[in-house]
């Protein structure tokens, strides 16, 4: 049984992410943990500067959160029945990232799926502050960010963007490999050439990647004469790929790519789901 964490704030974005996940895992036995973190006038457990609200308020908010989750589960069970799917509700009065980390300690979570606003509105809104915080701070579990305007259709192709400059461990790609098998998806490894050809270490990393993803339909691609963000954008847009993934690394070029306002109108990153993989590599 797979454990999948679905943080929700009961918004439309979160709801779409849930639907996407249910569909993606429709043939798998799963335990979905629906997580809501609530706060009262900005108060969380552990906050020092906000006055502790009265017990009554606390109880009321807690009840609201719990009821909301129960209703959500009922709606899912009724609208999207699947005997393989089980649901659990978790309510916390921690800040969201802490609530997520609390769950990660308790349970062996396969992936966290969050909703994002998609391509409408300003850039800052596409990846809301919570999304950015989660992507930035959660380091022990893959995170899938699903834009609200993406309906689920069969995933046929995932683009793994990589500079091939970091030597990863097999574990870093474990989830991606499972996902590729489970959804029968091909993986296109995309490298944007900054110099001509690959260095020796890049070639070694490429071979390693091949061995890590053995058995997956795998192809390697490179584009030259374009910047990294533009190159990735062109690749995805040209091929109509269904998901983009990369391994998170602090201060990596992907961070720049995703969170750089310079590229805010590259609608594409907000058009398809982004899967952030974690690394144990130094």
């Amino acid at each position, binding site marked *: 049984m797979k454990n999948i964490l679905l943080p929700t704030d009961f918004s439309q974005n979160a709801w779409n992410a849930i639907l996407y996940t249910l569909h993606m895992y429709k043939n798998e036995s799963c335990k979905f943990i629906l997580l809501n973190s609530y706060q009262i006038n900005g108060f969380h457990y552990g906050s020092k500067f906000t006055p502790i609200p009265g017990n009554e308020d606390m109880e009321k908010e807690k009840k609201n959160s719990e009821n909301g989750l129960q209703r959500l589960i009922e709606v899912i069970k009724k609208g999207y029945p699947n005997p393989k799917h089980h649901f659990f509700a978790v309510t916390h009065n921690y800040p969201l990232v802490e609530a997520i980390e609390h769950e990660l300690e308790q349970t062996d979570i396969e992936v966290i799926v969050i909703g994002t606003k998609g391509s409408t509105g300003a850039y800052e809104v596409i990846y809301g502050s919570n999304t950015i915080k989660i992507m930035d701070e959660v380091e022990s579990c893959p995170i899938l960010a699903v834009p609200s305007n993406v309906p689920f259709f069969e995933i046929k192709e995932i683009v793994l963007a990589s500079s091939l400059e970091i030597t990863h461990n097999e574990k870093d790609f474990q989830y991606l490999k499972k996902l590729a098998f489970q959804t029968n998806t091909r993986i296109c490894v995309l490298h944007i050439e900054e110099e001509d050809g690959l260095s020796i270490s890049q070639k070694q990393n490429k071979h390693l990647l091949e061995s890590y993803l053995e058995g997956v339909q795998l192809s390697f*691609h490179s584009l*030259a004469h*374009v910047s990294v963000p*533009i190159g990735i954008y*062109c*690749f995805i847009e*040209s091929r109509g790929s269904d998901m983009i993934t990369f391994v998170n690394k602090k201060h990596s070029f992907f961070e720049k790519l995703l969170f750089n306002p310079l590229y805010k*109108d*590259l609608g594409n990153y907000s058009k398809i789901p982004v899967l952030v993989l974690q690394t144990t590599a130094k």
Partner: protein
Amino acid sequence: MKNRILIPTDFSENSWNALDYALNLFKEDKCIFYLLNAFQLYHFTTDSIILPEPGEPEYEKAREESEIGLEKLIDGVIMKSDNPNHHFEMISSYNSVLDAIKETVYKKDISLIIMGTKGETNSANTIFGSNAENIMEKIQHSPILVVPEDAVFLKEKKKEIVFATDFKTYYSYRELQSLISIAKRIEAPVRILHILENEKLTPEQEENKDSLREYLKEVLYTFHTLTHIKVGAGVHSFIESRGSEMLALIHKKHNILNSIFSKSLVDKVGYKPKVPILAMHELND
């Protein structure tokens, strides 16, 4: 109706590859291939203003070399694949490549020129290196398919043709005919690529887009858009990303897509075409 296809050759590896590509592309079709070799006696033109005339030994020697070369070429082709659909005629012309092609296109009512290129600027004495570009620009009465040296026509491979356009000019059906017929022949969908400069298409662009829809209804086609990228790099990235088989362009005056042919762009991005380019032309009549 038989296809009348002109294949200029300088007996190089490139031009052999272009011929091979042509034979595979038109495998199922009845064709006459005109194999054209143009010979010139350069050293005389620099030393003296008097060109050798027919009958003079230098001329006769060059002519013989050209004819023997063509005969060998045809023997080689027939040995490789004796296709009953295909017929060959050889033309040995004492002329510049450009003029020889012009003349043959006119005299033989050529429907398509297929020629090789190295894909980069070569030394001056290689006919089809830098000249391919020149010929694409100068020959107005026949579409040209330029085949890079390492392009291979694989029957099994799924194919698609990228037609890059900015929708800014109106195309007639006749101007696009070679694209449509090749797409049909190899059962390739046409990917119409537009590198977007402005947010929205003008009404005129919309109209031109509609006329494309009309012309291409006999084949499969899809529309694609890329933004934030220069035309040359965008077209290149699109083809590279998708692994497309062929690039089709219409060469019009004052057309932004001309920049794909232009030398400065080739130099700037090192754009070296890896796929065959079908260059169609504006027809004025």
